[in-house]
């Protein structure tokens, strides 16, 4: 074991000037803009849903999209704050209100449609392209966010990874709803909550392992 004075000498010797991180809000904004560009590109490639004009007049749909997007944005702000040691860990609660609104609209839509159509209303086959869209849209977003937050692996890795996962899920799903006609069935609930849950789970695993790997 090297002695502590030796370690200090070693660290001092390799202490190059570093570029300070920009404020968390600025970095969150940057990520949201990059995310929006990527998702717009995916949307342009796939094409918006044909009934979008009609759907935009449906308040539940609008609230759902708006709350998902807001959850994504607030979770991003939260993640960039939580990842900095001297910021409060309570920032992680910031996306909670919009997250609850988002999840409740999904549940509400699902319930009304379930009643109208009966159990036959779910068509699992439809959702395969959705999975591709989720993967296509969310993977680059998650990778970029991971690199922007990698310093968090030493401090609060789990909290950062969880909030970051919600950020990716919120932003991706809000965009997904604009170009997929899959709504108000059980599948939406599974997708929306499922995508969030899977990402949180992966995030938590990253938090434990990936974020912690290099020491």
């Amino acid at each position, binding site marked *: *074991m*090297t002695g*502590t*004075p030796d*370690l*200090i*000498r070693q*660290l*001092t*010797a390799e*202490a*190059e*000037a*570093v*570029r*300070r*991180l920009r*404020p968390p809000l600025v970095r969150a904004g940057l990520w949201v803009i990059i995310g929006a560009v990527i998702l717009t590109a995916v949307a342009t490639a796939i094409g918006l849903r044909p009934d979008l004009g009609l759907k935009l007049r449906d308040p539940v749909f609008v609230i759902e999209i708006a709350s998902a997007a807001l959850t994504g944005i607030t979770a991003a702000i939260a993640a960039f704050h939580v*990842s*900095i*040691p*001297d910021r409060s860990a309570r920032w992680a609660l910031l996306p909670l209100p919009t997250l609850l609104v988002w999840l409740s609209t999904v549940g509400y839509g699902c319930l009304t449609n379930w009643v109208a159509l009966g159990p036959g209303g779910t068509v699992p086959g439809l959702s395969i392209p959705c999975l591709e869209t989720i993967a296509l849209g969310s993977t680059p977003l998650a990778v970029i966010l991971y690199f922007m937050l990698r*310093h968090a692996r*030493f*401090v*609060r890795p789990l909290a950062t990874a969880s909030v970051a996962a919600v950020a990716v899920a919120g932003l991706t799903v809000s965009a997904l709803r604009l170009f997929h006609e899959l709504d108000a069935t059980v599948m939406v609930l599974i997708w929306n909550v499922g995508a969030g849950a899977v990402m949180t789970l992966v995030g938590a695993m990253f938090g434990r392992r990936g974020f912690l790997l290099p*020491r």
Partner: protein
Amino acid sequence: MARAQDGDRQAYSTLLEEIVPYLRRLARRWLRDADEVEDAVQDILLVIHAIRHTYDPGRPFGPWLLTIARRRLSDRVRRHISRSAREEPLKPEHETLSTVPTNLAEERADGRRLHDMIEVLPPAQRLAIKLLKLREMSLKEAARESGMSVAALKTAGHRALKTLRAKFVPHED
């Protein structure tokens, strides 16, 4: 810290030296073993070094430092608890013979037999085992010392272990 971020090594060195006694006091509250305390202090210093770009000079340094230190210490204690839950200390009854020298003598005899066997290995295998296992060199270092390629060393080392195992195991029981 702000000056250290700009590359002022003297300021950085002074800062690290000044926070060490504080970190040591803090670590002593969490850990009892002196070595463990020193290990924890060094770990905190390494983390400070790795993420020094996250410090915002417009804000006080104390909370930034304290969060890192507390976080690393609580992680260490948690790891320690989960490790001690899995492991059981060696007790006298775990040894085949209760007096220590008896056990060691047997080990020494085994060691001598192993050395004898290494001596009769083919030259390349003998060299590989000596450099890689007995002198604990890395493949690269051993390649430099012996003039053999890394691949050749790897193969020779592997073959040597196989030969030794084959010779050793039948005598074992």
